[in-house]
């Protein structure tokens, strides 16, 4: 469970999050929408302590993030928008192993996790390939695998579909669906709900640093009108 309790945050005195409260349950698939600059990325970075609230509190599985960063970072896997400049290694396997290595796991356990993560994103057996030689969609999936290898209970993804062609996007979506069905909480930031709305349990949308909508998908279309988000045509 990820819990925001009246979180506020400002960049150089410009308030970006204002009194945000939000709870994401285990296994929930939550879509996270909002205009450019509404504060989505800023909020997501609080989930694992990359940013610290100016006031309020973020809890992961009941523990404040600030009290146990390791726990928060291993339970919340995070996928950033552009994978290319975040890979720490030149090959697929070495990059995915980075997280588990830092958790100090046994080598056999690390290998097992790398294998599982690759399987989860349909890239089994490709650990020795060079990341630079992969297509954009494959790179996005490696980034997701890197997060999965931490064995997270939640997955936070910041616009993971940018630049992906249709089959690549589908294959990433399929993975997310099956992960969520298996109990991983998914928080997915996107501007376009058309392909994802039916998969989600909830839609949350921000406006100017506040939560403006928090509804089940069926009611989201109406609630989102005027909120800068592309919803499926009626």
């Amino acid at each position, binding site marked *: 469970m990820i819990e925001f309790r009246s979180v506020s945050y400002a960049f150089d005195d410009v308030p970006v999050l204002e009194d945000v409260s939000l709870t994401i349950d285990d296994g929930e698939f939550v879509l996270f929408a909002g205009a450019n600059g509404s504060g989505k990325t800023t909020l997501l970075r609080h989930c694992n302590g990359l940013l610290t609230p100016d006031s309020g509190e973020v809890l992961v599985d009941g523990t404040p993030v600030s*009290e*146990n*960063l*390791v*726990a928060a*970072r291993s339970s919340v896997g995070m996928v950033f928008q552009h994978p290319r400049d975040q890979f720490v290694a030149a090959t697929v396997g070495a990059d995915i192993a980075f997280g588990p290595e*830092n*958790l*100090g796991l046994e080598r056999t356990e690390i290998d097992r996790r790398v294998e599982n993560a690759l399987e989860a994103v349909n890239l089994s057996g490709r650990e020795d390939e060079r990341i630079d030689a992969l297509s954009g969609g494959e790179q996005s999936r490696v980034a997701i695998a890197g997060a999965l290898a931490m064995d997270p209970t939640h997955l936070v993804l910041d616009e993971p579909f940018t630049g992906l062609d249709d089959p690549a996007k589908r294959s990433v979506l399929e993975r997310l669906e099956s992960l969520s069905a298996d109990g991983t909480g998914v928080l997915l930031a996107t501007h376009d709900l058309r392909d994802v709305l039916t998969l989600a349990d909830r839609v949350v949308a921000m406006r100017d640093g506040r939560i403006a909508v928090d509804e089940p998908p069926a009611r989201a279309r109406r609630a989102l009108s005027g909120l800068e988000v592309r919803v499926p045509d009626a």
Partner: protein
Amino acid sequence: MATQQNAVDLVDGDVVRQFARAAVLAALIGVLGAIQIPYPLSPAPITLQVLFVFLAGLVLGPVWGTASITLYLAAGAVGAPVFSGWEAGLGPLLGQTGGFLWSYPLAAGLIGLLVHRGTDLRDPASVPLPIVVGALVAGTLLIYTMGAGYAAWLLALEPWEAIAVFALPFIPAELLKMAAAIAIVTSGRIEPVQS
């Protein structure tokens, strides 16, 4: 940042940020520093490495500036083609320009110490110009002392021969690099990391 129940000892956020900058700067030196202009007046080529040594000291300070150049040398030693002319290996570190290479981390540290007056970083743009220039000159002297000195010993040259071929021909180029380094840090485009 403390970690309670877990044995995992997280690297502090500020350190990660400085370290990432040091590593990426080292890679940038590898890309730009390896470009060499063969220079008929000297057995050493003109390269941009020294400019980055200046920048490492000015922008990253004595600790992380030295670390950055050390990463550059280590990566080159184990095979990254980052030395002048895209060379790699332990060989160049011991070859006729090896003295220059070994001097770089020390020079970056010296410049960092003089400009930042210790290990707490300040914005180099706010440091009085004479101090910056003085630091760069001191760093340059260190580079040439070690570079020409080692070459003289290695290749059995007289001191004056070594100075004539390994130092004097580069003076104009070094002055340009100093000007460039100062222009870059005063441009306001490079956000200093306070630590």
